[in-house]
């Protein structure tokens, strides 16, 4: 996982998968990197082939953190299979899913 800051936004990239093996480290890594200047988190899922409920839990945790700070979370370019998981769990209504 790679984290970098663009003005006001924390961008998360390089996630090959988001499941029980790395969900906690992703959640803690992102939470630790969210500073007071950060108003949004963009999570790039274009390389992510696999998301399970633990991964979704991590995303919800990040979403709750940003919501408490008045910010937002966007999910960028998920592949079809990952998008289906968002749809079946209705999380596509919670997160802004952006396809560029």
């Amino acid at each position: 996982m790679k984290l970098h800051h663009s003005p006001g936004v924390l961008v998360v990239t390089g996630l090959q998968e988001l499941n029980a093996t790395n969900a906690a480290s992703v959640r803690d890594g992102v939470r630790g990197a969210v500073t007071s200047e950060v108003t949004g988190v963009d999570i790039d899922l274009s390389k992510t082939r696999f998301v399970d409920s633990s991964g979704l839990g991590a995303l919800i945790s990040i979403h709750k953190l940003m919501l408490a700070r008045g910010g937002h979370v966007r999910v960028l370019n998920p592949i079809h299979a990952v998008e289906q998981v968002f749809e079946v769990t209705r999380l596509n209504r919670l997160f802004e899913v952006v396809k560029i």
Partner: protein
Amino acid sequence: MKVILQCPVAVVGVPALSRKRPLVLSPFLGQTALAHTLSGLSGEGAKQICLQAGERTAEVLRAVGAGEVWGLKITGPDERDFAGARRFILDSLPQAPDLALWTSYPVWFDAQMALLERMARQRVGMRELRPGVFVGLRTRLAPDARLTGPLWIGDNVFIGPGSVVGPQAVVEDDSYLDDGSEVVESIVGPGTYAGSFTELRRSFAWGRDLLQLDTGSLTEVQDRFLLSEAAAPKFSLTRLWKQWRHRLPIP
């Protein structure tokens, strides 16, 4: 009447449907497309069927047995005794020859919707709760489930409280839709569990496989509480009957 029945086992437009079993054995309104075809051919007066399904002929033959269920005599791919016989390619059903089945996933879905009411009225034990809402035997519906036709709910299905099913939905036999689940413009395959508050739209869910009808994207859901095979009871007379009925010497 003799018929040579040619069964495609996989088609480019719908590869996911032949992932688990030959294409003609994929679910189609309470049975398989092959079972509907055999019913249709029998209704048209067929007596003997030469069944051809390429390298998967043996597997398809095992599923239909010798054909007693339909009053037919079904034999393997050898067509020596079928000179001059009618040839039927299973890319549509005899009951609706103008309706293509396998061109694409939306076409496959639309074919089921087009035939839903007709097939439901022919199915033994299926009742119409209200216009367009057909429900099979031993199915339990929560009082507050919202059912909107056209809708097919098969035998031995459970629809949980707060669920939304239909319009344009098929829930096949032995499936379980947990509380608050939503199935709209979708098909739930036989023996499938959909967990609480899962939502299926323009999808085909069968066991853990989830297919998006418009994109053709297929994913295997990893979390069993979201989507999985419904656990079958250890002993079931219905299951025994389904497994053995083809082999019983019932005239």
